[in-house]
Each structure stands twice: as C-alpha cells, then as structure tokens.
C-alpha cells in the first residue's frame, strides 16, 4: 500500500512537471516558427492540387485555410506590418476549395485591393477573386458590390465600377443602393458623398467583424478628410480677406462664425501650422485618413518584411 501511495505521488508530480515543461518548450517552438501554418502556401501553391489532396474533405480544408487567411492578415496588421503577400494565395486556395464561401471573397475585396498598410495593394487580384466569386455565386449581390467598390476606390475605373453595380442591381434581393451607386459612378458625382455611401453600405451589410471595423475606420477618417478640405478652404478665404494666415483654429472658427472650435472624430480640436495647413493633433488616431497629416508622415510602427 505504501509503495502504491509513493508511486501515485511520484506519477502525479511527474505528470504536472513534465506537462508544464512541455508547454514551456512549446512556447519556444512557437517563437521559432511564427508563420508555421503558412508553410503549405509556400510549398503547395496550386489550389487544384490541394483540392485533390484533401480526399473529399475540401470543405473542412477550406475552413482551415479561411481561418489561416484571417489570422495571417489580422495578426500582421495588429503587429503593424504592412506587407500581406500571402493573403491572395490563401484566399485563392480557400475559395477554390469552397467556391461558395462568400465571406472570403468579401474579405479579399476589402483587404487585397487597398494599398499598404491597409491592404495588400493587389487590386487586380482582388478583381480576379471577386469575378471568380461572381461566376460561382451569381446571386450574391454583395460580390458585385465589392467588385464595384474595388473598381471605384482602388482602380478609379468608373466605367467598370458602374457596370459591376448595375449587374448587381439586377440580382434578386439586391440592396437598393446598387442602382443609385451605378448612376453615381456614371456621373462621377461628389467623391466624399459616394465614398461615404459605399463605406456605410459595407458597414451595414457585412457579417464579418474585421470588414465592419475597417468600414467604421474609413467612415471616421473620411470625415477627417472632408473636415480638413473644408477648413483648408476656410483658411484660404481668411487669407484672402485679411492678407495673413489665421494664428490658430480658434481664430479661424471665430472668423467663420462657427458655433464652436472644429474637432476631429476623436474629439480633439484641429490645428493650423505656421504655413496655414490644417492638421489633426494625433495622426496615429486616423490610420486611413489621407488629409490633415503632417508632411512625410507615415504611421508609427509600420514594418515591412518579406511575406
């Protein structure tokens, strides 16, 4: 009985100690191979070969690759990295394995096309992915919408954007905005208004958290772009009237008869530098804004690396 008791105690201690040690070593292994799950993409780039190798379990494999794509993009973005070269192959493999995984096309539309650091800067591949998605899911109006979005926002190709929205508007249960967007593309109407409408539609209709957060960021930063454009025009008017630049945003607000000092979406007042440029106080708060940033500014912590 005593021997059995001793063995039990010893085995329990060994179990705890060795298991804890294995977790400790495993953390070291993770540090050694941070991109390990993506090695498949480096070695087997052909989605067709992977589909055959999946032995019929292509749905499950598609889900795994979809998770890897989200992880890859989200992980690198949160670390401040700005190159996403494996995003396109990951999404192409995912959608080849499961051509009806609509969210993967949406994700590609949102994050493949925009230039770094907000996306992979590959609008052509985004268009190819979305066209493939439309061929396989002709009744998904969101895919036409995403395609039009990429053509409008990233490629500035209004004719193709209009065509994509127009095609999408004929799909049953399509969002009514598609018809309006098609018409606006044809006229190249008010840039901010159209952009706001596009991002707002994305925000309201997507099911994906990352895409929704991205849309919310764009909507917020779009307001910065619009505010800065308007305030810059006010600075010009002030200069024409007084022959000098306003000394501060407060002086400009008084001169323009504004009800209060103009603030950015984070609640901080805009500022005017000695050369009369209107700027936000903290540019890092607005990662996708294009105006109101100090000259030569690049977002803090944006790293470049090979993948």
């Amino acid at each position, binding site marked *: 009985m005593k021997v059995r008791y001793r063995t039990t105690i010893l085995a329990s201690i060994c179990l705890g100690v060795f298991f804890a040690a294995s977790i400790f070593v495993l953390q070291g*292994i993770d540090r050694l191979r941070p991109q390990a799950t993506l090695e498949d993409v480096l070695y*087997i780039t052909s989605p067709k070969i992977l589909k055959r190798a999946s032995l019929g379990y292509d749905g499950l494999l598609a889900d795994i690759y979809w*998770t890897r794509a989200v992880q890859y993009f989200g992980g690198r973005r949160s670390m401040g990295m700005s190159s996403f070269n494996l995003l396109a192959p990951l999404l192409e493999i995912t959608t080849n394995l499961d051509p009806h995984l609509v969210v993967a096309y949406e994700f590609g539309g949102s994050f493949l096309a925009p230039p770094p650091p907000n996306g992979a800067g590959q609008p052509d591949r985004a268009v190819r992915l979305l066209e493939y998605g439309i061929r396989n899911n002709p009744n998904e109006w969101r895919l036409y919408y995403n395609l039009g979005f990429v053509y409008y926002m990233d490629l500035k190709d209004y004719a193709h954007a209009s065509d994509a929205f127009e095609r999408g508007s004929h799909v049953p249960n399509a969002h009514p905005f598609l018809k309006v967007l098609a018409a606006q593309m044809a006229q190249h109407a008010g840039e901010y208004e159209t952009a706001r409408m596009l991002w707002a539609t994305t925000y309201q209709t997507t099911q994906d958290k990352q895409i929704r957060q991205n849309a919310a960021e764009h909507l917020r930063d779009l307001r910065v772009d619009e505010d800065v454009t308007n305030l810059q025009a006010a600075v010009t008017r002030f200069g024409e009237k007084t022959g000098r630049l306003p000394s501060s945003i407060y002086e400009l607000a008084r001169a323009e008869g504004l009800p209060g000092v103009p603030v950015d979406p984070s609640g901080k007042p805009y500022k005017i530098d000695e050369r009369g440029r209107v700027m936000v106080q903290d540019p890092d708060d607005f990662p996708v804004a294009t105006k109101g940033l100090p000259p030569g500014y690049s977002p803090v912590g944006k790293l470049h690396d090979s993948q």
Partner: protein
Amino acid sequence: MNARIGYIASNTFREAVRDRVLYNLIAFALLLSGAAIFVGQISIEIEKLVVINLGLTAVSLFGVVIAIFIGIGLVSKEIDKRTLYTVLSRPVRRWEFIVGKFFGLSGTLVVNTFCMAIGVFVALLYVSHKIMPADALIFIALYFIVLQFLIICALALLFSSFSSPLLSAVFSFSLFVIGSFAEDLRGFAGMAHGMTRWLATAAAYLVPNFSAFNIISSVAHEHPVAGQLVLHNTLYALFYTAAALSGAVLIFEHRNLK
C-alpha cells in the same frame, strides 16, 4: 535501466515481431519501389521531390497506424489473455509494466523506421543516381517522425490503461489528427476573446503539437532545419511523452484488475 523494464520491453518487441507487424515493410517496399519506377518515367525534375515526400509520408503514416493499433492492445490484450496476472504476481510493479511496454513498442517502431529509411534512401539512389550532402536532412525528418511515434505510443498506452481497445484507437487517432492542426488551434485561440480564448488556449496546449514535427515538405525542398528546432522538438517530445506515461501509470496503478 531497470532489468524488469528491459525484460518487458524485449518481450513486447518479440511479441510485435511474432504478430507480423514488420510485414508492413513489404507493403512499404512495394509502394516505394513502384513509385520510384513510376515517377522516374513520368516526372521531370521532381522525381527526387516525389520520392522524399512519398517515402517520408509513408514512414510516418505506417508508423502512426502501428503505434496506435499495437499501443491500444498492449494492456487490454494482457488482461484478456490473463497473462498480466502472471506478470504482476512476480516482483514487477505496475509502473514498470507500463514503462516496459512503452519501450518495447518504441523499439519496434524504431526498428521499423530504420528499415523504411533504408528503403527511402535506396529509392532515392535509384531516381537520382547519387546521394547528396543535402539528403542528410532526411535523417532529421526521420528523427522527428520517431519523436512523433514516441508521443503516439505514450498516448495509446494512456488510453489503453483505462479504456477499451476500440475507444482507445478512436481517441488516439483523433488526437493525432487534432495534433496535426495544433498550430491552427493556437492561432484560433489567439484570435478569440473571453472564455472562448481561454478554452481554446487550454485545448491547444493540452493536445500534442504534431505540426512542428512535420518537416517533410521543407526537407524535400532542401530547406535547412534550425538546430534550435531539433533541440526544442526533442525536449517537447520527451516531456510530453513523460507526462502521458505518468498519466498512464497513475491510472493503471489504481485500476481494479479483478
């Protein structure tokens, strides 16, 4: 090593050989020689790649199947045949029985892997007519495969110490599949929030991480393997195996064998 553990281990090895476990080598030899001749005729430039990929994958899968199907029967067969009582009536402790069984099965798998490794190199020599210094990387891949077998043997023994052979096979095979995607599981845990994150992280560290042992593709492409990875994988396999064996001993020690 304790002499009693040595006797149990050598008996387990002999029994596995008597059970014609090593007959799988014939199937392996046929598969590899057939593949070598076949790819030699149809592939351009990738014969070597195909032989390494196919050879090492076959070594791994054959070994995993043997480890699971022999491992799950090591305890239950002894109980069914009532030979366990004879063994335990002698001055043999239960933990020695478990550890001896583990070493016996591991030995069988090492011998089996050694024979298969010879087959891989012969096939490689056939398709590329020479062995290059870079082919030494295959030894590292084989070493990692053996480490993987140690973990699976220990897990099969752990399950067989309290469960039926069928359930043990299901548990062991499920853990092998889940463990092969362990890094995805940890990635998922990293993306989750709240309670899901905790549960996913716990599950990710509880299951064995087999993905770190799979360097077959990388070796086939002649990519070097970091010495640190060899060290970490060795330590991980030893610690995890020791933990699983401790669990098996703990359960078997309290199992009612009447």
